[in-house]
């Protein structure tokens, strides 16, 4: 069966628009795969490469003039940052390329290397769940003929396969889940000096393990893992005896509520006999992760649950990465008590779509910052004020006070708040950092 990519009018219009303005361009294909079909929700052109010096001198970025001008590291980092914004179940499925001449017949080696770079970058953090498979889409849109063709390329087997592109409307089933996090972690004495990032890794590993064995309920009912989401409403009526809230869920209006029950039976009889230890301190991660997902109706319960799990971990790892990146060296490994406030998740509706993507705002940031990242990372320009939904909320003074009392009352004076008052520039932080990486990488290439 030939793979099919599902697009719509808006997506086609976007490609045409980009190819009118650019002879050469590259960008990301964002979407979800289900039963051999790729449901594309967005194309995001990668901004042209612009160095820091260029920016300072007000020099506008140079547009690529040939396909070899596309920068692998730049594109891969764009993919990583765009992935952070995607709800669970959505991925960077591949790339689109705009050029006057056909690049798919024969398959251009530059495209192979671009896809390879993207895959490597997206796989570097397993909790980002950036690249679940190796078969990537490539959509070529000719800036000469305004025609497009799509193929898939498997970066391990190197096989190139044709892909049908169809334009049709898409239905989604909306899933909500509010995940409560409350993890206390003791730092072993000799680990006290390690950067906090290392400790967080342990917490993420633990969470991942918990979610792997947890029970996922949909609208407070247990479902067979092979049931598809679209059957949930139907089955419910048959089984109404055990259902308390008999609201209409078949119409797809009301989101499915996911409840997660952690299994408290690890049966780990091997659990260490040594349980009294000298600790160098403790770290508590507390708060909620709000997840909103959109899944294809034919998605199975097992796949949907996996998507929820990926969403929670992807969201956590994204905001924590952003947080570490915002800290200077000694803040990360300092020797004092501190409250760390990573950026919180807000939702931004994708224009002309029911799907909302995530952005992460540091304390003090607002819609203006979200607007910038939307423009830079997703190539979406919003006129006027951007609507964002604050799904999680910021911890306020009373919360912090409560935790000081609970956790830090031993020494209040040492506490320093780790939210950045001057974090306006942090939106650029990611790009600036990647730029540094890029420069190093380029230099490396040049001198090798």
């Amino acid at each position, binding site marked *: 069966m030939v793979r099919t990519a599902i697009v719509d009018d808006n997506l086609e219009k976007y490609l045409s628009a980009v190819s009118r303005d650019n002879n050469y361009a590259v960008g990301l294909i964002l979407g979800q795969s289900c039963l051999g079909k790729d449901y594309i929700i967005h194309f995001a052109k990668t901004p042209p490469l612009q160095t820091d010096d260029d920016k300072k001198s007000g020099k506008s970025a140079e547009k690529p003039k040939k396909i070899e001008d596309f920068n692998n590291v730049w594109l891969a980092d764009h993919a990583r940052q765009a992935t952070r914004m995607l709800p669970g179940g959505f991925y960077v499925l591949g790339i689109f390329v705009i050029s006057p001449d056909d690049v798919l017949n024969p398959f251009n080696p530059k495209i192979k290397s671009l896809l390879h770079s993207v895959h490597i970058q997206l796989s570097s953090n397993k909790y980002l769940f950036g690249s679940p498979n190796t078969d990537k889409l490539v959509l070529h849109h000719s800036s000469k003929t305004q025609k497009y063709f799509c193929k898939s390329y498997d970066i391990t087997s190197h096989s190139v396969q044709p892909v049908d592109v169809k334009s049709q409307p898409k239905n989604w089933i909306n899933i909500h889940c509010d995940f409560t996090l409350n993890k206390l972690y003791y730092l072993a004495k000799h680990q006290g000096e390690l950067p906090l990032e290392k400790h967080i890794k342990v917490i993420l590993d633990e969470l991942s393990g918990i979610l792997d064995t947890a029970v996922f309920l949909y609208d407070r009912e247990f479902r067979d893992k092979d049931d598809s989401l679209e059957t949930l409403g139907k089955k419910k009526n048959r089984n109404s005896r055990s259902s308390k809230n008999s609201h209409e869920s078949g119409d797809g209006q009301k989101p499915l509520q996911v409840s997660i029950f952690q299994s408290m039976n690890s049966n780990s009889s091997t659990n260490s*006999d040594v349980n009294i*230890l000298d600790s160098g301190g403790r770290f508590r991660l507390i708060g909620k992760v709000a997840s909103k997902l959109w899944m294809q109706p034919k998605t199975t319960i097992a796949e949907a649950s996996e998507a929820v799990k990926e969403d929670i971990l992807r969201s956590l790892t994204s905001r924590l990465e952003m947080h570490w990146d915002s800290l200077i060296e000694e803040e990360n490994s300092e020797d004092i008590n501190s409250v760390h406030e990573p950026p919180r998740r807000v939702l931004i509706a994708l224009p002309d779509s029911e799907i909302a993507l995530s952005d992460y705002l540091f304390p003090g940031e607002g819609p203006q910052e979200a607007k910038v990242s939307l423009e830079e990372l997703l190539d979406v320009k919003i006129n006027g004020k951007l609507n964002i939904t604050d799904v999680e909320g910021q911890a306020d003074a009373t919360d912090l006070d409560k935790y000081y009392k609970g956790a830090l009352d031993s020494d209040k004076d040492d506490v320093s708040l780790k939210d950045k008052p001057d974090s306006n520039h942090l939106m650029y932080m990611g790009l600036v950092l990647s730029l540094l990486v890029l420069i190093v990488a380029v230099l490396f290439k040049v001198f090798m």
Partner: protein
Amino acid sequence: MKLNIKISESITKRISNLTDSCSGKLYGIITKDNLVIVALHVSQNDFDLTNSLPSGIEFCGILSVGSENQHHNVIPRTVLIKHVFGNDGLSAFIEENGNYKATSYIIITEQEINNTFLYIRLKGEIPLKSEFTASALKETFQNVQKTASLELVFSLLKSNIFILDNETIGIDSDISLNEFCEESNSFNEEINKKKKVINVKPRILEFNLLQQLTKNNSSEVIKEHAPIGILDKHPFKVIDTLLQIDSLAVVKADTKIQNLYTTLLQSINKLLKLYEIKFLDFVNINKLTKNLVYEIFHFYPEECQHFLTFLYAKDQSEAELKILRLLLHKQLLLETSAPCFRRSNQYMFDKKPNGPLINPHEGIRATDNGGVIALVRGKYEYYHYCQNKMDDNGWGCAYRSLQTLASWFKLQGFVDRDVPTFAEIQQCLVNIKDKPACFVGSRQWIGSTEVNFVLNTLLGVENKILYVSSGDDMASKGQELVSHFQNHGSPVMIGGGVLAHTILGVDYNQQTGDIRFLILDPHYTGGEDLHTIQSKGWCGWKNANFWDKGSYYNMCLPLVPREV
């Protein structure tokens, strides 16, 4: 409404043997208009049995044994059970307007109790992370209990039925437990029984523990915020562990599913209390150790007929625990001749699906010899040919009889060792130089002497050897066998010619000199089918002709220490 008082037979039995006056506490199960008193605890100090009893069995009154005019403080909403020396039986009183008023009661058997109620066993684990000081531990245990009631979910084992506070998922909330159990056939014992069996043994439903990680819409609005991290870099001495949860609750069989949550939660709280007491003791002693691992043991002593749950430190030997056990025996008015609370006495919840049968002689046709009947006491496992897919037909009978004897010592709690395998038996005989090295793995049979050596070496059991020169003389050992079963109660191995058997009891008529032997035959090669074993005589009463006139016989009588 009048409260009907029912007293467990096990309580009246134990009290009627008393010769010293004493007082104690009573524990019972209160349902709508019944109070079933199932447990007693004779104790002067503060040591409280409540947390060791399944939730649902709670303090309900006081026990007084001695003279007529003992003074009692009247505790509201309790009963007083009195036994006055010289009087028959007990008298019951119930609190009314600040005084104890006489009332009637009936005695209820174990069978009736276990038909009315059933047990729920809840398994799981709860993380405990706390600074290792008494005050911090107390606070942490309080917090664990508090969050438990908000977040814990119970699920019926191997099902998708979940019980939450005010909510059940996957089952109608007003279905009752026994309705549900009948539908799903949840009790293993009841599977493949043709006729309706009356429960004597407690029926047990197993539940698992889960924790909600998501907020339920209906739960009260707790102010929430995005995740933040709080780093506290002070050095602490901490305890970071997973508390194993394995708790019991007792409920009426017709309890509605929706009413289970509180009882189950209470069973966890009782267990947490047991942990807390142990941990606080430990902090206060301030012992320098890195081990603080307690294991949960459930006991169901025959004389008590209810469950008791205790935590034993993993690194504490049975010998170290002896004082505690002795205290328990005394406070529960149990015989001190055989252990009830050693680790190996723990209640066997999961019967191995094809494991050996336990006590196949129970329910066998009685003898008609009219003599003194003395039988094996306690439990043993029936070992016979061809078990564990091993073909020992023709040579393994004495090994099997030996295994039956060893199982008795294990099940009685005297030894903590598993029943020795054929290989272990042979290796043991080689080690003590009774047999050459080539004996291991061979198919050579053994006799009573070897059984004696092995029991002595591997289990530390002393044995008495009886010898008769002909099967005809077996009756002459009648009196000695009677006194063995009366005083020791362990099964006896007998070897003669090429055959070995196990003797489980005798019926010895002193007037006529006639004797019957209750024989357990290890030569049975079939499956674990009690009906066949009993009806075909693989376990049954035999007369003296059973023994071969032309053979001599050696009997190995294991001696049993009198200790707890």
